[in-house]
């Protein structure tokens, strides 16, 4: 037992969790903690908007596999975090958020919380639906245990954000503190081991399958199950399609890789899903963007579903073999069991079909007469970037072009807002990823509409010396919405034209960052190479045609078979 203030206990508890970095902004109700942080080894990175503190923590977590931490003051500081927390929740990212809160007691009234004090918001009530765990600390002595618990819950089972709300008087209260080494929660016991009977059923299905296929989601990355997935896929000569969240879990230059599946998946992946006789779905929640119309999803396949979250099984898709367990453990076990029964396959009619479709459907992109085509730009970026470079994306056309054309070979190198689809995520997430992996180049593939939502973090990146590159695919439009209006709303462009403001080069320079505008693929390539060597953040403005569409595409509400590869 040691006597200290709540704020000191918080910082001590964070050190015990090996927290090295906090993204945040200070304010009245969290002053005592920032005062303690002033003397601490923990680096506090001052962002310029709290939403970006949460996104940066999220990017940090996804790039490193370690929890990301963000902090904000009460009221508006806390509510500004909410989008970032919701984003982390939908993409199962371990973000731990701390918020200041008004005093529980004040001198002249018995209660302050609940009386609409200055900068009071019920952040615990607000974040219940978007956190895995949240709690308002009422006594300083609860802090060590609560912090331990929040990190435990955020990082185990299906990861997700946790939030701890800290009234100011609790931060200053002196108390005897006891720092526990372990925490036990009776309502939370995530199960990682697969049920042997279900594994047996899965092994039998896969053994007998003629056309087995994998649908790999973000859970494969979270569970670090890429080696097990690769081994199993190769043993069975089984093609692998990924969801947007799963991108990176399987090397995309591998002959068995089909790329992404779903609304903007590859043609080969979407077509082969219809032909598969067994689908092994791992760490995915069968989002509507992945499955298309559920009535037409995988009509010929028996489905095996591995997920650590029991509530995901049977939620969207009825499955034949449910396995509630950790992906790594389960895939490893299935692989070992099959190895005894199977000889390594060299080829099969199914693999030949996979090869045939991949080749046939690969190169039907229309090159047009301009070389500033997003697919070409992104393929060029891939050539320039080393394998360990990290790409983040914004949301919209930029994201889908990146998913289709940026071939990843390593987990945690492709970071995107999959579930919530938060425009403005990519840039702060890139900063978080760079802080987590300072040795890797980090590039945000952005659109002009998304980047402008969080561009103020250029100030953070310059002042905190976190150099990343933002490549703005600039069509002066909210491009994805415009694409839908072009295809489904008779070209009636309503509320999508952004015009030529701002000048992104001048914007970058205003913050002390570096800005380039490019007019050809060659200039882009040169600018990107300069950016990667630069010690300050670089914004590359890449003007593209406002008429560009992302194809292929499965129109909303249609089945995967209805994939289209051009307009009209």
């Amino acid at each position, binding site marked *: 037992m040691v006597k200290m203030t709540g704020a000191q206990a918080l910082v001590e508890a964070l050190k015990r969790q090996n927290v090295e970095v906090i993204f945040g902004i200070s304010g009245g109700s969290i002053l005592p903690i920032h005062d303690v942080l002033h003397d601490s080894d923990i680096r506090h990175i001052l962002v310029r908007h709290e939403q970006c503190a949460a996104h940066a923590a999220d990017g940090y977590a996804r790039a490193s596999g370690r929890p990301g931490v963000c902090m904000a003051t009460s009221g508006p500081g806390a509510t500004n975090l909410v989008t970032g927390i919701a984003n982390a929740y939908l993409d199962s990212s371990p973000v731990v958020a701390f918020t200041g809160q008004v005093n529980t007691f004040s001198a002249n009234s018995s209660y302050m919380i609940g009386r609409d004090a200055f900068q009071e918001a019920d952040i615990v009530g607000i974040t*219940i639906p978007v956190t895995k765990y949240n709690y308002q600390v009422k006594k300083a002595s609860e802090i060590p245990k609560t912090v331990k618990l929040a990190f435990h*819950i955020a990082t185990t089972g299906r990861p997700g954000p946790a939030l701890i709300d800290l009234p100011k008087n609790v931060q200053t209260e002196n108390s005897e503190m006891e720092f526990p080494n372990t925490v036990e929660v*009776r*309502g*939370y016991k995530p199960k990682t081991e697969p049920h042997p009977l279900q594994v047996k059923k899965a092994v039998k299905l896969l053994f007998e399958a003629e056309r087995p296929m994998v649908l790999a989601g973000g859970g494969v990355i979270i569970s670090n199950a890429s080696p097990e997935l690769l081994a199993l896929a190769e043993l069975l000569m089984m093609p692998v399609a990924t969801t947007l969240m799963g991108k990176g879990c399987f090397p995309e230059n591998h002959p068995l890789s089909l790329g992404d599946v779903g609304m903007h998946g590859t043609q080969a992946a979407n077509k082969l899903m219809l032909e598969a006789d067994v689908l092994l779905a791992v760490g995915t929640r069968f989002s509507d963007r992945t499955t298309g119309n559920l009535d037409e999803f995988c009509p010929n396949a028996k489905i095996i579903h591995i997920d650590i979250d*029991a*509530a995901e*099984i*049977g*939620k969207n898709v009825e499955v034949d073999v449910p396995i509630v367990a950790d992906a790594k453990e389960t895939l490893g076990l299935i692989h070992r069991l099959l190895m005894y029964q199977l000889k390594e396959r060299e080829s099969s009619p199914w693999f030949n079909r996979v090869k045939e479709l991949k080749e046939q459907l690969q190169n039907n992109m229309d090159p047009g007469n301009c070389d500033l085509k997003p697919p070409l730009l992104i393929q060029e970026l891939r050539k320039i970037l080393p394998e360990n470079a990290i790409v983040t994306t914004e949301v919209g056309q930029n994201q889908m072009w990146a998913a289709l054309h940026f071939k990843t070979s390593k987990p945690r190198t492709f970071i995107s807002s999959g579930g919530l689809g938060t425009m403005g995520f990519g840039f702060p997430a890139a900063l978080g990823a760079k802080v987590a992996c300072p040795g890797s180049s980090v590039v945000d593939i952005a659109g002009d509409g998304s980047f402008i939502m969080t561009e103020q973090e250029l100030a953070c990146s310059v002042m905190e010396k976190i150099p990343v590159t933002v490549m703005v695919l600039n069509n002066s439009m909210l491009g994805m919405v415009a694409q839908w209006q072009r295809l489904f709303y008779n070209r009636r462009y309503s509320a999508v034209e952004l015009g030529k403001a701002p000048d992104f080069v001048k914007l970058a320079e205003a913050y002390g960052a570096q800005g380039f505008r490019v007019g050809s693929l060659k200039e882009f390539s040169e600018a990107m190479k300069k950016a990667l060597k630069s010690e300050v953040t670089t914004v590359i403005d890449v003007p593209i045609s406002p008429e560009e569409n992302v194809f292929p595409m499965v129109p909303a509400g249609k089945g995967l078979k209805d994939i289209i590869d051009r307009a009209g």
Partner: protein
Amino acid sequence: MDMAKEQNHIISAIVEHKPGVLYGVANLFRRRGFNIESISVGPTEQSDLARMTITVKGDEKTIEQVVKQLNKLIDVIKVSRLDPANIVTRELALIKVRALDSKARSDVINYADIFRARVVDVSSESLMVEITGDSDKIDAFLDLMKPFGVKEVARTGITALSRGAKSVRIEE
């Protein structure tokens, strides 16, 4: 959704007995679009635990999701679906009935006797009856009271336990 397959299911959940837990559960039902028919909450034999008895209308798939989603809440410790064939359910209702003359009064009192209900308050214009039983019994009694004029009803919602030695409890 196939309405024909929708019926009432009773879920018993042992939860942490602390502020905010009911909010979390109620919020989950709202967000996922599950319909609560009734909910009753009270302490258990263990002082730090509460029991929620939730009646939900839905098909099999919906109820399965309800149970799984409830299980995900950290403050929810154990969730069980109670088997309707092997369960005791009770509800309590307070019913205020118009009774202006002695004939009405004695009729209400007679009905109450038959239903083993009790008259718990009397005024010059009304009687208040307390009745306990399963929901069907209370519905039947309410139907009988309608001709007199039902002024107010307060029902607790269903609370339930499964029969026999099996129990939904947390080992200490």
